[in-house]
């Protein structure tokens, strides 16, 4: 099945145009909402079509402006990009529904912002561009679109606290963006291209030291965005201050886009032969630091932020193995985590609205007051901890299997690797247990106590109104919808893991990606340095789609001509 290339452009261009439309409609809030919801729903449908097309007939490729790949802008919707795009679009749709419901409530008190929808839509466009883009510079532009939207969203309705939180966030993100630009300049200087397909062909020919330096710089850049320990410090201080829907979408998507960028660049451009010890260590540190940090927190949103950091470690672990099974686990975990993390922050927003505080010890027993919210929080909390049969269990099981397989592998210096992998597996189990403990404690303290009488708004100065009247039905419905989406995941675990395995096999076979990008280009490049990029793209990896059994990462050095 092939679909028109325009479908690969729609997830980026549609929300962008709609963002302009909402600015024109800025005095018609209802029209803004309808437009935004319609466009994001269209992106969901489009992403589903792209995923079906990518799985059955190969990637959908769009060359913008008719320029050939190394120069022009190329969008590629392969299995991984389409799957993550679909997941992200579903989450953004639900969060937008929640935000609309919250906006309807806040209208009565006058708290509504004209530019929220525009920023939200540009954020959606930026996320889509980051998934779909096929060159490193466009990835930078996508990150900037995303981040600039998030800067505005985080500092919307400015309070002193949000300004302080926003400062840290903006400065850290800007620093990482400038580092990204530096890497881009160096990569271009070394290879003469920024197209991912071109880099996949040229970078293996660079001297090993230069290649390692560039790879590490790229890892640092995306590690800041993905909140990899020790580059995570900004996240728990900045996300929790924003309103619930904004925190939910930022926490669910931005860090995962960072992980996606690490996965894409480090499988396609800087591949590793077998386990990468550095990433394995970072994964273990991220797992434990995040979980132990969450243990020490009182505020619900800060607990969730530290757990977010912690669970990035799961994805890093799967990537560090560089096997098909490991990468399939990463993909499953990303899908699971995008949905569950957004659900948790939305449920936390409901708690804050009902109780007037996000400190669990002050909420009193909410379970008897609003049992729905207690259930809506409990399901994703259990899922995050990996309790069967929820989605977290499926994803964690995939990663643990990958770990045990990699641990059992034999090789020249297998002993140290095996020990490292088993340490990481143990860290994952400990982290799951700590997550369960933290979540159970938060739930019991916040929900399962004697209900206390309604208390006055603790901080009348801020924009947050407190009480049962401040929660509208769409907000609960959107949260429930995301919980249901999380429940669909284990039901579809078989097909999904099959899809993830095929996507992982694609990732470890960069020649497929290169062929897809360069296949139907309008013309061969004629500039002086284009020829270097065309060297034997098909000989780099020997593992094809027919071999998803886990030894895909063992043939990474065939690229030198």
């Amino acid at each position: 099945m092939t679909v028109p290339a325009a479908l690969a452009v729609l997830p980026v261009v549609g929300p962008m145009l709609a963002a302009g439309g909402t600015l024109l409609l800025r005095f018609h809030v209802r029209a803004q909402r309808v437009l935004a919801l319609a466009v994001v729903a269209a992106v969901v449908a489009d992403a589903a079509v792209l995923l079906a097309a990518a799985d059955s007939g190969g990637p959908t490729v769009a060359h913008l402006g008719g320029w050939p790949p190394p120069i022009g802008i190329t969008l590629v919707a392969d299995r991984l990009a389409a799957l993550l795009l679909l997941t992200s679009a579903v989450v953004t749709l639900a969060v937008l529904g929640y935000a609309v419901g919250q906006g309807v409530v806040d209208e009565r008190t006058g708290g509504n912002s004209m530019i929220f929808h525009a920023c939200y839509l540009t954020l959606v466009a930026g996320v889509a561009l980051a998934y779909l883009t096929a060159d490193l510079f466009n990835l930078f532009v996508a990150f900037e679109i995303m981040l600039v939207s998030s800067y505005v969203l985080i500092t919307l309705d400015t309070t002193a606290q949000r300004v302080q939180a926003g400062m840290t966030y903006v400065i850290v993100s800007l620093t990482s963006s400038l580092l990204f630009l530096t890497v881009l300049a160096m990569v271009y200087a070394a290879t003469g291209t920024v197209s991912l397909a071109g880099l996949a062909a040229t970078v293996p020919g660079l001297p090993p030291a230069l290649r390692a330096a560039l790879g590490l710089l790229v890892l640092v850049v995306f590690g800041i965005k993905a909140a990899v320990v020790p580059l995570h410090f900004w996240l728990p201080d900045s996300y929790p201050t924003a309103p619930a829907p904004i925190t939910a979408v930022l926490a669910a998507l931005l860090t995962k886009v960072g992980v996606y960028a690490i996965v894409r660049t480090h499988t396609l451009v800087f591949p590793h032969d077998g386990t990468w010890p550095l990433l394995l260590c970072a994964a273990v540190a991220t797992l434990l630091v995040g979980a132990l940090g969450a243990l020490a927190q009182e505020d619900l949103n800060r607990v969730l932020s530290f757990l977010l950091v912690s669970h990035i470690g799961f994805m890093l672990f799967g990537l560090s193995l560089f096997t098909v099974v490991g990468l399939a686990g990463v993909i499953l975990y990303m899908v699971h985590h995008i949905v569950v993390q957004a659900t948790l922050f939305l449920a936390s927003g409901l708690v804050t609205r009902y109780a007037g505080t996000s400190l669990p010890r002050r909420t009193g027993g909410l379970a008897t007051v609003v049992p729905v919210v207690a259930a809506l929080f409990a399901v994703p909390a259990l899922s995050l901890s990996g309790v069967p049969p929820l989605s977290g269990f499926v994803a964690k099981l995939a990663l643990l299997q990958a770990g045990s397989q990699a641990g059992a592998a034999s090789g020249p210096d297998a002993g140290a690797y095996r020990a490292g992998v088993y340490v990481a597996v143990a860290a994952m189990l400990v982290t799951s247990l700590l997550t369960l403990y933290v979540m159970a404690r938060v739930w019991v303290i916040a929900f399962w106590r004697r209900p206390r009488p309604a208390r006055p708004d603790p901080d009348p100065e801020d924009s947050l109104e407190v009480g049962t009247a401040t929660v509208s039905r769409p907000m609960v419905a959107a949260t429930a919808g995301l919980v249901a989406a999380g429940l669909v995941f284990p039901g579809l675990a078989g097909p999904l893991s099959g899809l993830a395995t095929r996507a992982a096999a694609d990732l470890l076979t960069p020649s497929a990606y290169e062929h897809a990008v360069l296949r139907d280009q309008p013309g061969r490049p004629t500039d002086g340095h284009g020829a270097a990029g065309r060297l034997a793209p098909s000989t780099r990896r020997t593992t094809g789609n027919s071999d998803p059994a886990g030894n895909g990462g063992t043939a990474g050095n065939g690229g030198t001509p």
Partner: protein
Amino acid sequence: MTPPPNHAVLNLTSVVVVAGLYSAGTFLLLQRGLLRILVGIVLLGHATNLLLLLVGGRSGRPAMSGSVPPDQMSDPLPQGMALTSIVITFALTTFLLTLAYRAWTLLGNTEVRDDVEDHRITALEERLEAQAGFHFFPHPSLPHPHAPRLHRADRDGHRPHQQPAPDNAGRDADDAGPDNAGADEPASDGAGTDESGSGSSGDGRPGGDQG
């Protein structure tokens, strides 16, 4: 593999300028005032833009097609990238400026705040030291190793919203009322200890309800 010939020329002066800009930018980025950080980011932005131009090859050649043969042209791609990044850094500089102005009007200063955890740890340590009657650190006359620099707003007694001030804790315990009266230990006026107190009461609660 040899690098593409167009990129073989590096101008030493430009390299020194780029290195200087990077160092000065990094130094300014590590300061506390938002305006210094802003200047640091501007310098770093200039450094990266210059670096992008630098990797485009020999300067002084035209980048437009049609004027000279292609092999005498300068590489237009880095110039396009530099242009894009100039626009982006410019926009973000203005955003940071407005943020600094807003911080000035709301907070009375433009300093980047301390880490929230640092505040909590320092507060906890001070309480524990007050209870234990001795200092955990051998030379109390020396500056406290974990003591963060306080903002002007903090010195006036305002503290960030999330962070439990010591004088808050007593009220919390009162608020809890009969709920966790049994679990409230005398030492529960700290952030961590208070939480564990509520936690144990929460643990006990379900059993109490059922029994």
